[in-house]
């Protein structure tokens, strides 16, 4: 059984890699199988791990307020019937409204307050040149980066200059993240190659 499993896994691995050369029936086979299996897997695991404990168990235990969730859930399903489909908007409204309120304070704190708080740093650190330069770059960089994101003012003159500095610093950061990620992506491929050459073909151990 284990050998069969390894062979299946190895062939499917090759099937996906074949896409790099060009789209082909082998890849299409892997892809369509993958879609079906993943959707089934997702449905089944959510059913057992979320639906049962969150809804069924609570209703059985007599926690009637979970009924409200179930009612909204059923409303969602009414989309399948065009005539009363509009009722699903109530559920949608609850989802969207709740999360909008939830995210409002979350973003305000973690993306606003905390970032400002972290950027309030001294521009001059006595006897420590490298930290002084570092702090200056952070404050000026954040400042000019924000200027770049101004929408209601034309990027002209000194303002435009700062905006340009801002986008340069953004590009610096993008280049750095890109270069930094290469290593972890290569590790993923090394892992797959180990599987093909080692576990499957037994060329390395």
């Amino acid at each position, binding site marked *: 059984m284990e050998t069969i499993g390894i062979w299946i896994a190895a062939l499917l691995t090759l099937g996906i890699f074949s896409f790099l050369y060009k789209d082909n029936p082998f890849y299409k086979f892997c892809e369509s199988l993958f879609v079906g299996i993943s959707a089934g897997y997702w449905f089944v695991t959510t059913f057992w791990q979320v639906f049962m404990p969150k809804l069924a168990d609570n209703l059985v235990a007599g926690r009637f307020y979970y009924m409200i969730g179930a009612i909204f859930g059923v409303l969602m399903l009414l989309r399948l019937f065009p005539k009363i489909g509009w009722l699903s908007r109530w559920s949608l409204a609850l989802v969207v409204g709740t999360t909008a309120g939830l995210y409002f304070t979350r973003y305000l704190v973690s993306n606003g307050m905390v970032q400002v708080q972290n950027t309030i740093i001294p521009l001059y650190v006595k006897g420590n040149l490298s930290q002084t330069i570092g702090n200056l770059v952070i404050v000026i960089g954040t400042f000019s980066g924000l200027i770049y994101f101004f929408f209601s003012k034309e990027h002209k003159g000194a303002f435009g200059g700062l905006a340009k500095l801002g986008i340069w610093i953004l590009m610096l950061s993008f280049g750095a993240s890109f270069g930094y990620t290469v290593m972890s992506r*290569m590790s993923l491929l090394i892992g797959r190659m180990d599987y093909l050459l080692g576990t499957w073909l037994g060329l*390395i151990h």
Partner: protein
Amino acid sequence: MTFYERLMQLDRRWIYLAIAIAVIIPVLLPFKVPVYITPEVRSVYNFVENTQPGEIIFLAIDYDPNAMAELHPMAKSIMRQAFSKNIKLIISALSQNGPGMAEQLISQISKEYNKKNGVDYVYLGYKPYFGIVILAMGQNYRIPFPTDYYGTPLDSLPMMDGVRNYDDVKGIIDIGGGNITEYWINYANGRYKAKVALGVTGVMTADYYPFLQSGQVFGILGGLKGASEYERLTKREGEATEGMSIQTVAHLVVIAFILIGNIGFFMSKKKK
């Protein structure tokens, strides 16, 4: 289309092929890529090198199996270096899923060097609440660990005779994949003034450099690269060197293609 223009528009399948070769060849034919040894790695190596036979180093293995790829090579090299110089080790494993993995590693390496549990090394194992454990070990190892991992009381282990706390070891090397590392710095170094060096994952490395500058730790092995430097220093190349060699070749290939693209771009622009 001129030669240079062609350089700018290579079929990407050539790139894919090059990457595949770059990853496969080093796996099949292991070879060494030269490594530059950074001072923060060398200082850890020198620390172990300058420890006298019979003295004790504390080795904290604070990672889960999911960080093994990067951190296991570090633990291996340090243990091998210590055992080959007849340095004794006290080893703890404070990460929840790590103790079993650490035990395997210890029994494997100690066998290689014919080292005896309780005589040449002591494996304390795991206790919850790493903050309190690290702090309590500053008083006495026996507070959190009345017995070792195998259930033997510490007092009946010959090696622990007269060994009470961090004062009785030469220093601490913590190899960690999470926030336990911070507690070693703040408690073992901050409160008990123990010498601490770190081995951390690549993602964590940049965050811990400030502790090096402030002198709170005396050395850092960062990620696979730090591990491969250490393997090179101890002249026993293993997984880290191999992994790093593949990474180096793969990075070289990416850089080479970037350069090819730019050469094509500049030369074809010049012609016009």
